């Protein structure tokens, strides 16, 4: 039986590790190391290979949740992690300078994978600063000929993470 996996990607500090921890049955396996680049001001540690969590289905089949490293210099890891993946969740940190550009960058980099599967966009930390309205994210998707769900989420909340996966599953079945 092939591995069933859902990929969670997004900007550094968006909460990929937190999202996996919120829903995984087992404590996520993490590959964090001390931050040395410009991120060190906002984040002490960052993921360098992947985060990993799991869900067990009723027949004991496992769904694996993989969190990619956020920084673009780990792009080579993204290509490896998505192989055979079910779909993609993109977390966008809305406190960053240009969240729309961040979303577009991930859509572009994962375009081949997304074309074969589907994606859900999770906007995080929208309450902390002035950010583009939700409509602008949909317009940006529309400009690329895409129509994916965009949710405002708190990735510490199991329900919010479950909603993103649930929406992804529906997309895979019906869109």
């Amino acid at each position, binding site marked *: 039986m092939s591995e069933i996996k859902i990929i969670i990607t997004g900007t550094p500090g968006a909460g990929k590790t937190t999202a996996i921890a919120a829903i995984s049955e087992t404590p996520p396996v993490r590959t964090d190391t001390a931050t040395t680049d410009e991120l060190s001001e906002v984040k002490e540690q960052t993921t360098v290979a992947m985060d990993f969590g799991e*869900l067990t289905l009723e027949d004991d089949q496992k769904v694996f949740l993989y969190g990619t490293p956020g920084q673009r210099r780990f792009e080579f890891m993204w290509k490896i992690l998505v192989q055979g993946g079910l779909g993609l969740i993109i977390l966008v940190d809305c406190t960053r300078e240009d969240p729309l550009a961040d979303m577009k960058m991930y859509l572009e980099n994962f375009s081949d994978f997304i074309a074969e599967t589907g994606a859900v966009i999770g906007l995080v930390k929208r309450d902390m600063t002035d950010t583009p309205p939700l409509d602008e994210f949909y317009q940006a998707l529309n400009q690329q000929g895409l129509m994916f769900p965009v949710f*405002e989420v708190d990735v510490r909340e199991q329900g919010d993470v*479950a909603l993103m996966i649930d929406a992804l599953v529906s997309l895979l079945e019906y*869109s």
Partner: protein
Amino acid sequence: MKYLSSIGLSVKDENVLKSLIDLLGARMSEEWHYRDDVPADALLLDVDNPDAIATWKMRPETARRNTIAYSNSEPGFALTRRLAKPLRAAELIAVLKDIEQANDELAVPVVGSEATEVTTLADCVDRQGNGVMRLACGDREVVIDRSRQQFCSSESGESLAALLTLPLPEYQISTGADVRLPSEASVRWQDQKAVLWLVGQCGSHGKLLDGVDRNGLFRLNRWPGFGPVRPSHTVLSLCSLLSRKSAMGIADMREATGLPEFDIIAFINAAFLTGILDIQSGDVARPETGAAKPEVSTERKGLLAKIRSRLANPRT
């Protein structure tokens, strides 16, 4: 002929209920029968029984209309019609007559409207346009201020959804200058999209809004913000279906999902009320027959269903 059913009653209560129904006869304007195998016009729910409530919540909205809460005490459960235990004929007759009457009076004029008739809450809210509207039932209320795009309510989450499920005649409706707004300090105003979504989902009762072309082709221009109530599988499926590049008609949606038209109409109305629905005339070229059917293998469908089931039952 009308049918009554029940969920969660003891064997004794169920037998008493069946006997009482048989005895109602001429006291009712309609002939009532106890049946579990047909869609019921009224449903008696033992709200002291948590398993019964769980079963009830899984039933489609069509099957939950006219639910009567049956309880030992005042239930902490937002249902308008109640019967105290043990069952008494007079009280049962009163509540069933109330259901008969509510169905008869479904067509009522909306206050402040252009003298046209509306039959559902969704129609009522849709026609209200930009003004202020207060919907009340007993001590429960919702105030929608369309000009400020906000709402406030005494209820939240599932109890707000339950309040918006009632038949239209059960609300006291006031509009415009007649609405006494709650003091700013006492309420929390929220984005109206959440309540408009619920009005469409809960208050459509199978009737498409007047402004929506039944033969139209539909597509979402964005996904809804679901607000206080977590979306069901039905809602997520329809969102996904209407996110496709080609717009779809109601019949296509039924074919693709197997969902009843009642649920599809509730979804379309909710999407229309919240402004996320694009509608094309049904006269434009339709997608080829069969295009509505997603090509997902049975094995894959099974896997996706298992993931969905797992998400609905979180483990701590």
